[in-house]
């Protein structure tokens, strides 16, 4: 089963070339990538991630608002009962902020030096270690029709 990833760009920054390159690279690695486009609010991202039932949310952020966007995103996921969706990020994030983001549950931040292969390997590893396949199977077994 392909890994399903939501790629989103929050806020007002209009530069989505990076996000599109990421989407295409993950596609070429055999993943199903939901691309939501520009100007997303955390509410929109979480609603889309829940409807699409993705394994991973990938946030592309260059605006410097990461210390606002990620905490809100993590809170909304928790409120929506969707904390099991893995959140990762990439773009321009100061090194000092990365431990703070990880402390609130962001699994990985890929900086400007990361290659697309680093990203693919990272997503595959994170889903293997923290993915939801097991949880999904359990849900069905619990509700199995007689």
């Amino acid at each position, binding site marked *: 089963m392909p890994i399903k990833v939501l790629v989103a760009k929050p806020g007002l920054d209009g530069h989505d070339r990076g996000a599109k390159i990421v989407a295409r690279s993950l596609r070429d690695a055999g993943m199903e990538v939901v*691309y*939501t486009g520009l100007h997303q609010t955390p509410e929109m991202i979480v609603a889309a991630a*829940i409807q699409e039932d993705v394994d991973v949310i990938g946030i592309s952020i260059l605006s410097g608002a990461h210390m606002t966007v990620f905490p809100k995103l993590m809170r909304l996921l928790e409120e929506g009962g969707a904390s099991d969706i893995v959140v990762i990020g990439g773009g321009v994030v100061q090194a000092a902020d990365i431990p703070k983001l990880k402390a609130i549950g962001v699994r990985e931040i890929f900086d400007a030096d990361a290659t697309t292969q680093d990203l693919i390997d990272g997503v595959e590893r994170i889903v293997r270690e923290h993915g939801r396949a097991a949880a*999904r199977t359990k849900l*069905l077994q619990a509700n199995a029709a007689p």
Partner: protein
Amino acid sequence: MIAQRDLARAISAVENGHGSFAQAAATLPETARTAPAYVVGITGPPGAGKSTVVDRLIENFRSAGETVAVIAVDPSSPFTGGAVLGDRVRMQRHAGDRGVFIRSMASREAGGGLAPTAQEAVRLVERAGFDVVLVETVGVGQVELEVVSVADTIVVVTVPALGDGVQTIKAGLTEIADVFVVNMADRPGANRTAVDLTHMVRESGRETPVLQTIASEGQGVDALFAALQSARGGATNAARAVRFEVLRAVRDRAARSALAKLDEPAARAIFASLAAHACTRRQATDALFELFFTGG
């Protein structure tokens, strides 16, 4: 309304083969409904504006007080299996609306313009209580017609100047439309395309509406909405869908039954004869057909 999370997970379970449709459906409480969901198929070539039309129609149905689910299919790579599902980009305005549920699906191994489990997804959102289901196909050519098997009413969205009048009399896509939409009607050639389609429709003895829209600005979409509402409840597609489904089932079963007999000595003898140029392909085909299907 059922929690969107549960609905989304039920669709994933079927999509990924983690359980049967019945098991997935059992995870959703049955909602009381007075009528089956109205399923509208939106199909047409890539880039014609299908997602934008869907976005506008969501607005119309919501204004009429109905809840709307969208199943939007985009193509999987035949090389890597990966897909970019980008239809949501055009539907952002409805993000905060709990009466709207949008689900993207990759076409995976299916070749008919839908996902292999699109039909199950439609039934799951129906079970979850949505009044209207909009099913958007991948960008299609002329013969990806699978949407016939799921939709009550089919909208074929095209754009001006994709070809001359001859294109409109070719078989396939133009035969399944209940409504034609010439989108991007502000572009040169829109009237010509609409006229060609109108002629084709009349000469076929049909009454299929041919509408012009500029979906990005919402123009003409009210007329499309009205055409859908008037088609609703009519049996426009039911008989066609049943026929399509049954024919497909017959074809699948025939293929399976033939494949099961391929190793029989009589069949091997025919292939050996063909390999030795002792008979033509046509003769071999006739002999195999006789063997497989008429008990010869």
